[in-house]
């Protein structure tokens, strides 16, 4: 099932073709900015054919991601709420995100790892294509409180940005789809596929007996929802946080009462780094999360049937599951210099 070959070789072929076709033997082969499909991951969902990643496009996306010009008063960048050190989740001091004028949001900013492979976005799945996600951040009053029209006006006033968009997309004017494409090029490259767990799957790493025991426990107790190599089946479920959920969750999108208080099953990649946990950041530690499943599950009518009587987890099992969860930490990703501000 798991193929050890990590990266598809085709991009390299492409470059070879390029070199060969142009008889330019000086070309360097550098795959830092080449999108790749990890062999053991689900197939990428992102429309790369409409927006292939290039080095220049990635770097423009990175500049935009770190630039508060996208917010109304120039105070908040995407990177305020999505930081590399925490796998592009929010910093731990912010259970709920903080936007312009320190306005408090309603949800915890999730990690942005492996966005290219997700079918839907946000805790409630309200957005179904990555390109459209930033429109929400930009226009939500408690995030960047700006309009997309005005962002484009501001970018067009900047000589630097005009020159960059010309260079990357050959467009004389900055328009929103290219700005969104640049951000997506940056974000789809946030591939976290080199945790110790990945290395283990590829036969390159040995896990301790404690970690392996934790993995087995995880498979039997959690995989009903946190399934597969990204630990999510991407369904929307109520995992019993509240007897009367205040945030309507998936219901906000579908308007169905049966979806009240349901949230997307999150991927648990880098979960060691993404505290606090849950859509509202209510738990600070993984211990608290596991104690919740063991003894804190609240009954509400949309509660997932599999959690009706909680999940029994002994203290010993809890420690094992947590050591397994820590094998999902990918320091190569959180320290990858290609994401440093250039």
């Amino acid at each position, binding site marked *: 099932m798991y193929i050890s070959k990590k990266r*598809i070789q085709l991009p390299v072929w492409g470059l070879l073709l390029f070199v060969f076709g142009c008889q330019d033997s000086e070309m360097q082969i550098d795959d830092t900015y080449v999108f790749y499909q990890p062999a053991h991951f689900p197939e990428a969902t992102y429309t790369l*054919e409409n927006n*292939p990643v290039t080095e220049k496009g990635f770097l423009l996306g990175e500049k935009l991601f770190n630039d508060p010009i996208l917010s109304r008063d120039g105070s908040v960048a995407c990177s305020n709420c999505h930081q590399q050190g925490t796998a592009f989740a929010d910093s731990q001091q912010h259970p709920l995100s903080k936007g312009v004028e320190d306005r408090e949001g309603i949800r915890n900013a999730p990690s942005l790892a492996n966005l290219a492979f997700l079918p839907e976005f946000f805790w409630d799945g309200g*957005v179904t294509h990555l390109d*459209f996600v930033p429109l929400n951040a930009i226009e939500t009053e408690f995030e960047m409180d700006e309009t997309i029209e005005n962002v*484009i006006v501001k970018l067009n006033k900047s000589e630097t940005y005009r020159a960059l968009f010309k260079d990357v997309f050959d467009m004389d004017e900055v328009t929103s*789809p290219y700005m969104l494409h640049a951000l997506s090029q940056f974000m789809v490259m946030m591939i976290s596929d080199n945790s110790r767990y990945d290395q283990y799957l590829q036969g390159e790493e040995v896990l301790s007996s404690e970690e392996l025991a934790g993995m087995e426990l995880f498979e039997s107790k959690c995989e009903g929802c946190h399934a597969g190599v990204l630990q999510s089946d991407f369904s929307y479920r109520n995992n019993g946080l509240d007897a009367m959920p205040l945030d309507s969750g998936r219901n906000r999108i579908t308007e169905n009462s*049966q979806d009240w208080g349901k949230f997307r099953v999150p991927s648990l990649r880098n979960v060691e780094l993404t505290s606090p946990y849950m859509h509202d950041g209510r738990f600070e530690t993984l211990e608290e999360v596991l104690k919740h499943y063991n003894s804190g599950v609240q009954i509400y009518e949309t509660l997932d049937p599999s959690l009706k009587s909680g999940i029994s987890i002994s203290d010993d099992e809890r420690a094992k599951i947590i050591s397994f969860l820590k094998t999902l930490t990918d320091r190569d990703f959180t320290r990858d210099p290609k994401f440093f501000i250039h």
Partner: protein
Amino acid sequence: MKTLKSTIALLAMAVLFISCGEETEDPQTKLGSSVAIEFDNFVGTSQVNLESEASTSYAYNTTGGQEFNLTRVQYYVSKIILTGENGEIFEDELQVSANADEIKGYYFIHESDNASKLIELTNVPKGTYTQITFNLGIDEEGVQEGAAGGILDPANGAPFWNWNAGYIGMTIEGQTSVIDESEFAIHIGGWKDIIPEDGTTQKFYNNVKTITLNLDVNMQVNSTLEPEIHIVTDIQKILGDVDFTATPQVHSPAVGRLFADNLESAFVVDHVHQ
């Protein structure tokens, strides 16, 4: 994975071609001729005249007798298909692109711009056509291509829902004398059905409607004839039995559906210029 591989391979080829300046363009073969489609917006029997946002003159009535005026009428038309009885078929090419000039097959009709109301189809194979089909709105195929330019660019006036992301297929805005705040806005959006598993009422709807209209004549297309299909859109029919006091603002697929269901009957082919 296969598709991804081949996409990457294709991209590589594209890079090869571009970088070596060996662009080859397919010679445009002219298959047939052009057909124009004109959309004309009416309320009942009166042509739509937009009012300013401060206006208190109400030229129209709903079927329930509530007076109103219109400040904005706009909609997307896409996936146009012409068919004939002898197997003639013309399917308008579709392409979503970040580059405004490369968008094909998606049209944004808005009352304030006359040019937008005329769609020019080219290369329609010669033959006799009896039917036109189109989508009112942008369906999943269009939305899931991602960020797009021109008429699909939210920074350029494209009506778009950020949350519950997708295009608003039909926008009808105006004022009415029957409510204090006077403004009403009917936004018909939603491109996906989500059917509840527990049997409760569905609230999340695909409100993109496929509309098929018979042409009133056998429309001849050949290199010398360039026919024009004249379609009339009746806003009164779309509003149906709306009660502005109860429903002045419509911004969700669930409520929009009540209006989307009226769309099919709101379009008619008035006549075809041969």
